[in-house]
């Protein structure tokens, strides 16, 4: 019944390219045969009823043509791999670790340590069986298990020894927290005769091998795992912790608190069994010995020796390249897509894979730059809020309504998650990558982030305003050198996620005479970090407060990519009000409102904004997003939070229903007067202020603003105000 169609899927190796750059496209098709490709410049991606429609310009490039279709797999689930595994096939061996399992009763095996290869049924593994019991297997023989189940989200010492000569297995577990009536320790002494330790050529942590792939992924933390080249007796196993290997011949002793930002794990035994992490498990996680004396891993890394592995982690699909575009010289800057079509037995399947073409580096081809919020796109990539959130319907004011894209992600769980989601074990997602098919940051998708931002490109084209496209990724790489080429920078509708460098760059730009149009809301809100060496991935910790999809655990507020405190920018000394005049005030997702002009709007300093707008006109009482220009998420000014004292609040929207809720970081105690009908903080302030050296900032403070630009064939007061500001901002005369 109503079966989902198959999909063409793809992604690129880069997000932003300049003329002369190469960009690789990696495609997977569920069909055989060939698919057709062409490159298009995207003007508008909104194909919804009543919207501007899907608008593209075809661009002739050498990659136009047909390509052989092939299926490319996705291998999700994180683990650590030690490739030089010969030493682990010792005739006598002991495995030892501290573990904090998060889904011990998952109905399937979860490997902790070993060289077991499921394909050949060879080697050994310490693992958790489907009912949550510590188990050990070697070769194809029946496994040994402890009768006492592991407790979820509790630290346990686990160890096993095996001697091939005698076949003797001793396995032991001990929980750190003691509870009356809940068995704390368990040990078993058994025999598996005739089994050998030789298995895969590699040793894995948090999974076992299945030929060259990994399987039996573990959910939970592992801290300080070790391998000893002797079969310890029961007393020896129990004595291994806290961290006493004694005189036993250690083969490997991994310290996960070393090189916290990287994907290498270090063996401190001196035997050289360093490993690498696959699919970005979470690092800088509290270890078994964390005692709350330090909240910052950089100050006491020895308390952060745990890595949290998840069976749904995904960093890089690692697909082969199907075609490569060399961006033609002179190609106009803009949003582009590779448009794919393939005919199948059940009809045509297609995809549009976006990328951004900036002007040649160091140059501008227009006075206006549209700053595409690629960091925010990344944070939302493949979000699955309907299944992750227990508050989704109360927040949105609607029963969950899945789109085809939502349903595809729900039914096909290998595409990785967003920073809005929880992993299968309930822990929050810290990392989001673009090296995977991203289904929701596309044309023809929901009007949120990417597709909503094409209302801006659609309007710029309709009004004949020349613009370049640049991205957060470019700004992170080049800082002010990128922005200083422009008189006016325009944001997207929801530039929510900012790194330290991006915040500083925007601040430097406006302080150096640049003009900024903040054409959105809930911007500059969360602090995030890109990785210095790994491309296409962003880290976020949902620390302290804020409107959050999940909540970071205490002691895990500091990012491992950068070492910085995560969370809100307003909790990191830089409220957005100090940068753009306004900051996140409220959200609601059923209807949008309109603005009324304020006395400030008649200040001569603001006259250019309202040229052609009547003094009593409702501004934006129309639009594609909730029927108004002020809505979905809205910002307000507040001098206590840094709104500059000379700021003009030129228009205010204040008529919101009870479905709009005041942001939680602003109230001290919960109470009943926090919604659009009873809370004066639920409002949307349109602001303007001048900055040093002739610069200025204009903020609409609403996500839905851009959805009103199209109304009445672009002839409306939202369009007029936007154009008034943009034309004044590109005029070099100081403001």
């Amino acid at each position: 019944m109503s079966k989902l169609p198959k999909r063409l899927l793809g992604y690129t190796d880069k997000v932003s390219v300049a003329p002369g750059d190469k960009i690789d496209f990696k495609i997977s098709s569920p069909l055989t045969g060939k698919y057709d490709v062409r490159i298009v410049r995207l003007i508008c991606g909104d194909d919804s009823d009543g919207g501007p429609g899907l608008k593209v310009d075809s661009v002739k490039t050498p990659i136009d043509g047909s390509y052989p279709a092939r299926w490319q797999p996705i291998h999700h689930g994180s683990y650590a791999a030690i490739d030089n595994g010969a030493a682990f096939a010792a005739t006598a061996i002991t495995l030892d670790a501290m573990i904090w399992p998060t889904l011990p009763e998952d109905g399937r095996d979860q490997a902790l340590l070993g060289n077991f290869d499921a394909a050949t049924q060879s080697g050994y593994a310490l693992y958790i069986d489907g009912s949550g019991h510590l188990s050990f297997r070697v070769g194809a023989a029946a496994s040994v298990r402890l009768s006492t189940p592991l407790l979820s989200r509790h630290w346990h010492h686990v160890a096993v020894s095996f001697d091939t000569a005698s076949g003797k297995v001793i396995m032991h577990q001990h929980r750190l927290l003691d509870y009356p009536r809940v068995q704390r320790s368990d040990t078993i002494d058994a025999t598996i005769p005739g089994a050998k330790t030789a298995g895969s050529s590699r040793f894995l942590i948090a999974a076992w091998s299945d030929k060259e792939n990994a399987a039996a992924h573990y959910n939970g933390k592992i801290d300080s795992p070790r391998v000893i080249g002797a079969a310890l007796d029961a007393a020896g196993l129990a004595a291994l912790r806290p961290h006493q290997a004694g005189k036993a011949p250690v083969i490997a002793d991994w310290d996960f608190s070393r090189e916290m930002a990287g994907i290498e794990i270090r063996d401190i035994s001196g035997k050289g069994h360093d490993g690498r992490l696959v699919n970005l498990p979470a690092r800088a996680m509290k270890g078994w010995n964390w005692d709350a004396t330090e909240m910052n891993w950089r100050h006491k890394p020895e308390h952060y020796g745990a890595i949290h592995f998840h069976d749904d982690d995904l960093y890089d699909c690692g697909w082969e390249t199907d075609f490569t575009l060399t961006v033609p010289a002179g190609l106009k800057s803009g949003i582009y897509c590779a448009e794919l079509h393939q005919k199948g037995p059940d009809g045509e399947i297609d995809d549009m894979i976006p990328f951004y073409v900036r002007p040649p580096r160091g140059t501008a081809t227009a006075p206006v730059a549209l700053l595409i919020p690629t960091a925010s796109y990344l944070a939302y990539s493949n979000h699955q809020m309907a299944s992750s959130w227990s508050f989704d319907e109360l927040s949105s004011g609607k029963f969950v309504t899945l789109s085809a894209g939502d349903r595809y992600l729900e039914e096909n769980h290998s595409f990785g998650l967003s920073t809005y989601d929880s992993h299968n074990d309930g822990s929050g997602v810290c990392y989001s990558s673009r090296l995977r098919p991203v289904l929701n940051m596309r044309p023809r998708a929901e009007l949120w982030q990417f597709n909503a931002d094409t209302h801006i490109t659609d309007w710029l084209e309709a009004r004949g305003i020349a613009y370049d496209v640049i991205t957060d990724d470019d700004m992170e790489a080049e800082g002010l050198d990128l922005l200083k080429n422009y008189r006016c920078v325009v944001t997207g509708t929801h530039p929510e996620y900012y790194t330290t460098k991006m915040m500083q760059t925007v601040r430097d730009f406006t302080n150096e005479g640049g003009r900024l149009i903040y054409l959105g809301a809930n911007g500059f809100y969360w602090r995030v970090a890109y990785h210095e060496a790994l491309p296409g991935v962003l880290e976020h910790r949902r620390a302290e407060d804020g409107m959050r999809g999940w909540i970071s655990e205490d002691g895990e507020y500091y990012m491992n990519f950068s070492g910085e405190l995560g969370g809100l920018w307003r909790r990191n000394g830089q409220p957005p009000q100090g940068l753009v005049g306004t900051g996140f005030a409220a959200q609601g997702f059923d209807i949008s409102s309109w603005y009324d002009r304020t006395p400030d709007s008649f200040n001569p300093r603001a006259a250019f904004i309202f040229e052609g707008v009547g003094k009593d006109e409702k501004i934006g009482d129309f639009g594609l997003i909730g029927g108004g220009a002020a809505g979905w998420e809205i910002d307000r000014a507040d001098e206590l939070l840094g709104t500059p004292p000379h700021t003009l609040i030129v228009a205010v929207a204040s008529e919101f229903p009870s479905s709009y809720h005041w942001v939680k970081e602003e109230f001290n105690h919960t109470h009943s007067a926090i919604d659009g009908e009873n809370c004066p903080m639920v409002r949307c302030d349109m602001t303007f202020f001048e900055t040093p050296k002739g610069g200025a900032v204009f903020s609409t403070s609403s996500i839905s603003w851009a959805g009103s630009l199209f109304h009445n064939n672009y002839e409306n007061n939202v369009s007029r105000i936007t154009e008034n500001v943009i034309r004044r901002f590109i005029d070099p005369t100081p403001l």
Partner: protein
Amino acid sequence: MFKIDSSRADLAAAYKKNPLDTYPSPALQKVLQRLRWGNARGRTIVVCTVPEREWRLGKMGTRRGMPVEIDGQAYNRYEDALWACFRARWREVSGEDCPVA
């Protein structure tokens, strides 16, 4: 804790009349909040099966990666699917049938 009262057919009728009402009465709002509290997994939801043209009721599996169970009845108006979802949730939350058909 507020309990849904199955004798309040007037509240169900008010929702049926305008499922997208931005200003539901306080009494109806309480009912909606009870129906919407909690994670949607395992509960009746709405699934759009043809963009802007067709909706059906559905249920997500117990975990990601499982097929969404789709009901046979198709609705050509979103409001009708919402009303059907309301009735199903009323039953799921209160244990009694919604008093309005």
